[in-house]
């Protein structure tokens, strides 16, 4: 596998040659529990970073006159799981607002896969994310966050309602619960293994 590396020889205490970072995306509608899921499994308190909207996806380099523009930023919440000394996993909660969907394009490059988090009271909020990952052939699962008071649906009903392919796993969960959130990630990774070993598409191609 080809890596992009700096050409300097690292010293022994700062050797990056054996370390790699990978990412998974947590997508879904506004307020569906993306950051809660990240919080449940992350080894660090989730961090927030921001990107300037005008720089996204366009590669704009000219900032002439930028001081007079109104700059809009979009926030990303993320967590980290140190898998082992060689692998660090980052979980990114994608912006909930539909109008920021194009942020996902840069984020999704190289992502191993995604969780589309859905709320049965507002299943249509997850359609945008499902369409996005389907169109970019990024493997994903649908996790249904079972809120208190929400009517319970079984997996088949959810599958029919969101109209996804039979091979896409659907998992019911409660993202406030660490074990439940962990099982969502396990289910996703098992799905990614299945896709990978049955000749599925590469991660994050678009």
């Amino acid at each position, binding site marked *: 596998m080809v890596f992009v590396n700096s050409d300097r020889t690292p010293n022994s205490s700062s050797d990056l040659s054996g370390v790699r*970072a990978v990412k998974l995306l947590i997508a879904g509608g506004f307020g569906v529990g993306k950051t809660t899921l990240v919080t449940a499994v992350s080894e660090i308190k989730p961090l927030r970073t921001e*990107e300037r909207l005008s720089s996204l996806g366009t590669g704009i380099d000219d900032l002439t006159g930028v001081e007079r523009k109104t700059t809009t930023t979009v926030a990303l919440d993320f967590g980290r799981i140190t898998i082992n000394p060689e692998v660090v996993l980052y979980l990114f909660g994608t912006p909930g607002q539909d109008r920021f969907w194009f942020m996902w394009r840069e984020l999704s490059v190289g992502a191993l896969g995604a969780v589309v988090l859905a709320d049965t009271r507002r299943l249509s909020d997850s359609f945008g994310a499902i369409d996005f990952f389907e169109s970019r052939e990024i493997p994903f699962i649908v996790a249904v966050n079972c809120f208190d008071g929400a009517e319970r649906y079984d997996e088949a009903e959810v599958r029919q309602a969101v109209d996804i392919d039979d091979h896409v796993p659907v998992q019911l969960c409660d993202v406030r619960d660490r074990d439940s959130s962990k099982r969502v990630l396990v289910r996703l990774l098992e799905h990614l*293994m299945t896709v*990978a070993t049955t000749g599925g598409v*590469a991660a994050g191609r678009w």
Partner: protein
Amino acid sequence: MRHGGDDASFELAPGPLVRPFAVTRGRAGKDLHELDIITLVVAVRPEADVAGLDREYGDILRMCQRRPLSIAEISAQLGLLLAAVKVLVSDLISSGHLIFRSPPPPTTGRPDIKLLQAVLDGVRKL
């Protein structure tokens, strides 16, 4: 470099909307060493080198001593936009203070099964 009489206003940090363009002096950078949001960087110069650097460069060099951090983590911890952090980190790579490792570019090949298995094993152990 600080302007002597303006220190007070500098301390009133204007936040991530304004500072990035100040700290990068308006550059958004064309040669960013292919830095991704999860590119890992680590210092290869001692913390003592911070003394010779502008504040934001020093902050980054200090944070990245002995442990790799991602561009995303640096951005979050400094309260700077990702775009600005990429410029600053890129400068520190060029000057030999940091080394980096970016994820491989997306390919049309099969995903790395061994890597997926390692991640799955790691998550199961949580």
